[in-house]
């Protein structure tokens, strides 16, 4: 009596295996369109880059000779590349914390229930709607030493002739400032969304308890916003490592390589010096650098994040 029943209730092993194969195949079919797109536009170029980084190339970018890790060894000894690393790291340090903190302040202000706050929300997030190229051109005019508005304002205070984009000491900072301005729209919008997602009764409960604004910020808002903050920081970090557009338009990596961040250096090596092997090697190094930083962030930063 028992035996036939048990056979009936659970299919035999081959049948089950066959079914599993089917469901797997079905799953793959659903994934196929995005797999194909990813392969063409992402996986293939990536592998090709890794491949090229082990070769010396001709001017069309064809691999000529396998050189092993020669490209990498050369890069790590190259003063220019080390300068690029320094510029990139400085650029990241200038832009990421500043964008996130500024955007957080703006989001906190814009989250207050005040008359006409919608207008400010639009203003604060408007930079998101501008392309890097357009905003870079705007900043280029503003930084212009003779006709730029910044120097005109500064001259009212008796400061004159600041060479924003030509002075190697401040060019990177100038680029960073414009980058922060460009980043803030996106960061602000995401943080505001995060703030509005927080259950308002939690604040009402805090109002009845009568806690101060700072206590509430520290004990309620920031912990509950931490997943969003974490996301925004990670994205900004990756974004910042990959900055290209504003550098190309504002300084072209100059003056004296002060703003020659890695992505710009890759571009120069590949499309100006036609040294595709070295460019690929830099790209691979950048990829691993971002990977490590993001990994570290997840490992140490995420501990402080309270997912609900």
């Amino acid at each position, binding site marked *: 009596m028992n035996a036939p029943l048990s056979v009936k209730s659970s299919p035999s092993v081959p049948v089950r295996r066959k079914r599993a194969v089917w469901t797997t195949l079905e799953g793959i079919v659903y994934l196929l369109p995005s797999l194909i797109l990813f392969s063409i536009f992402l996986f293939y170029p990536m592998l090709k880059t890794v491949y090229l980084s082990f070769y010396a190339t001709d001017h069309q970018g064809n691999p000529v000779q396998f050189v092993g890790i020669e490209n990498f060894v050369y890069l790590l000894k190259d003063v220019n590349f080390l300068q690029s690393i320094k510029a990139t790291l400085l650029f990241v340090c200038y832009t990421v914390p500043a964008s996130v903190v500024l955007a957080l302040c703006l989001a906190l202000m814009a989250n207050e229930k005040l008359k006409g706050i919608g207008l400010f929300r639009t203003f604060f997030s408007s930079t998101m709607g501008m392309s890097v190229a357009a905003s870079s051109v705007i900043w280029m005019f503003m930084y212009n030493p003779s006709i730029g508005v910044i120097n005109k304002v500064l001259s009212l205070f008796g400061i004159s002739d600041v060479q924003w984009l030509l002075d190697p000491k401040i060019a990177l900072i100038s680029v960073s400032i414009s980058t922060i301005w460009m980043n803030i729209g996106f960061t602000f919008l995401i943080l505001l969304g995060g703030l509005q997602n927080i259950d308002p009764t939690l604040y009402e*409960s805090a*109002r*009845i*308890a009568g806690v101060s604004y700072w206590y509430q910020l520290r*004990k309620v808002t920031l912990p*509950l916003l931490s997943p969003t903050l974490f996301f925004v920081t990670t994205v900004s970090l990756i974004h910042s490592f990959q900055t290209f557009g504003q550098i190309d338009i504002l300084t072209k990596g100059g003056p004296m390589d002060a703003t020659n961040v890695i992505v710009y250096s890759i571009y120069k090596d590949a499309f100006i010096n036609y040294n595709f092997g070295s460019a690929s090697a830099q790209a691979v190094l950048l990829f691993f650098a971002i990977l490590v930083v993001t990994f570290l962030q997840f490992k140490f930063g995420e501990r402080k994040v309270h997912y609900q």
Partner: protein
Amino acid sequence: MEQIELVHVYKSYNGKDNVIHDLSVSIEPGEFFVLVGPSGCGKSTILRMIAGLETITSGTLLIGGIEVNELPPSERNLSMVFQNYALYPHLTVEQNITFGLYKKKISKQEQKKRCLEAAEMLGLTDFLKHKPRQLSGGQRQRVALARAIVTHAPICLMDEPLSNLDAKLRAKMRSEIRQLQRRLGITMIYVTHDQVEAMTMADRMMILHEGRAQQIGAPLDIYNHPSNTFVASFIGSPPMNLAKAKVLESLLLFDNGRAMRLHHHLPPSTQQIIVGVRPEHIRLAKPSDDHFIAKVVNVEVLGTETLVTFELTKNEHWIARWSGQWNIHAGEKVPLTIDETAFLFFHENGQRLDHSIPSYAAGKGEHQ
């Protein structure tokens, strides 16, 4: 323990339409006061005005005899339990419970002591180190209660605190909350849309409809003497049976020709009235009784009682509620009788007519 008084309070969110109309009520110290009404009638709005989370458009709110319209919530010396509990998901149960003590400048030791006290009272001692998401609905509810208790505030406001719980747990928490309130002697204002909760918990209750107070009083008073048809049908389950009728001296004429003769003169002033009878007052007639015959359309046997739906007129169905289990089937015709004292009369506009049939304990015997 403090008295709370609302005097001619109005509330409007958009400056045009009033959500609360001319509300005046006084809640006594130590009282368990329930606000009950259908969804959207303004219960939460009233509670939030008392808490100070919403401004009062016009009128006065007094707590302990002092006007507090402009006082911030934290200075009104009250605690509040929210419908969704409003627990901080990133804090442990203990931190959640003591969160409200921050402002009161209470020493860490005293905080710990109060927290343990409250946790003990509500059976939460084993969960103090847990996060809210690791708790069941009932346990979360208790954490919210504990958070209200530790503040030692003399007034506690609760907004539908049980609506997320299942029926059994709700019944249990109902009595727990009630006992707690008695033990601590807090003045409680409790919002619910559930009339059973209101009936079982309230010392006094207020029934609201579309922002207007319909009736304020003790549950049984309201049950027995509803001041209008809304209250009559809102309180009681199944609700009071209502039907339009014409009065002809001592005769009640329903639509479609059904008539009932009473032994007393009915409200003389109006012709058309609304008649109300509670389901438990409709009995199966004994042979000697005055009775009317009605067709049964539905029978629900609930174990301890039986609900019999019958046709009063073609398109008006009334429900009778008999204790015990009855073997009656739809389609049968049964003789029914209604105690005359059980009739309530309402004006066409819904207001109850102040016409109680004279208590006639003697008369009752006489014609049975």
